[in-house]
């Protein structure tokens, strides 16, 4: 856990080392399930979220778009998402891609 008001989520540890697919119908590690079962509950109860993206076998854009782009479609404001969700990763292209779904 991070400091008070901050939730630390490590995708590899707290969700899956093999995130894959867009919808729940595509498999148990889909972007839709990650969004609905991990991200939205964390956004609903905490001030900020720190997401550790490293440690998985990689991400497809379909997963990223559904998990993170889906937050915007679900009604979260881009400015709110950018200020409340922080990322930890050695791959800056992942953060660029996720932010592009919020613009």
């Amino acid at each position, binding site marked *: 856990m991070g400091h008070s008001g901050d939730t630390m989520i490590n995708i590899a540890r707290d969700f899956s080392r093999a995130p894959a697919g867009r919808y729940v119908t*595509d*498999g148990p590690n889909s972007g839709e399930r990650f969004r609905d079962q991990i991200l939205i509950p964390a956004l609903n109860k905490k001030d900020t979220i720190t997401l550790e993206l490293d440690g998985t076998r990689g*991400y497809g*854009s*379909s997963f990223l778009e559904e998990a993170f782009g889906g937050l915007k479609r679900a009604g979260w404001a881009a400015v709110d998402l950018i200020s409340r969700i922080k990322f930890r990763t050695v*791959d800056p*292209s992942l953060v*660029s*891609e996720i932010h*592009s779904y919020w613009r």
Partner: protein
Amino acid sequence: MGVGIQPGAQYAFILPAALTIAGWFVVARQAERREFRKEVRDQIRELREGIDEVKGRATEYWLEGERSKLPALAIALKAELKRLSRLVAGLSQAGLDFDHAQLVVDIRTLATGGDFESKKRKRSDLGSGLVDQSQKMTVAASAMAEKKTAGHRS
């Protein structure tokens, strides 16, 4: 009559010594430039190979007709994209200034967007997008490398 010593003759060794030291600096600088250019050339070559790998893996994934083979092909493609991202970041750290993150995003989106890893995924031919994007990436990196090494030459 004794042999007279020219005034200032005791300092005559200074000029050859200074020229020798200057020569060492020039040689060291040239060696450094050669090394830098070699390093960048190697990285560009690796990047080209990495892009070819991604194209190959993406082609395999999107053209595969047998559904049971798709998970393994998808994992292989994502692993290559991770490697590509590391290679591009390496070029950026070497001082080649281009929008590396966005180029990786564009390639990843083309290769793994849409119905990637989805039950709705249909076997299809690759559009020209991935090829165009990867060519753009290689050209951008090569151009920056050329500019950078030219700077080092001057």
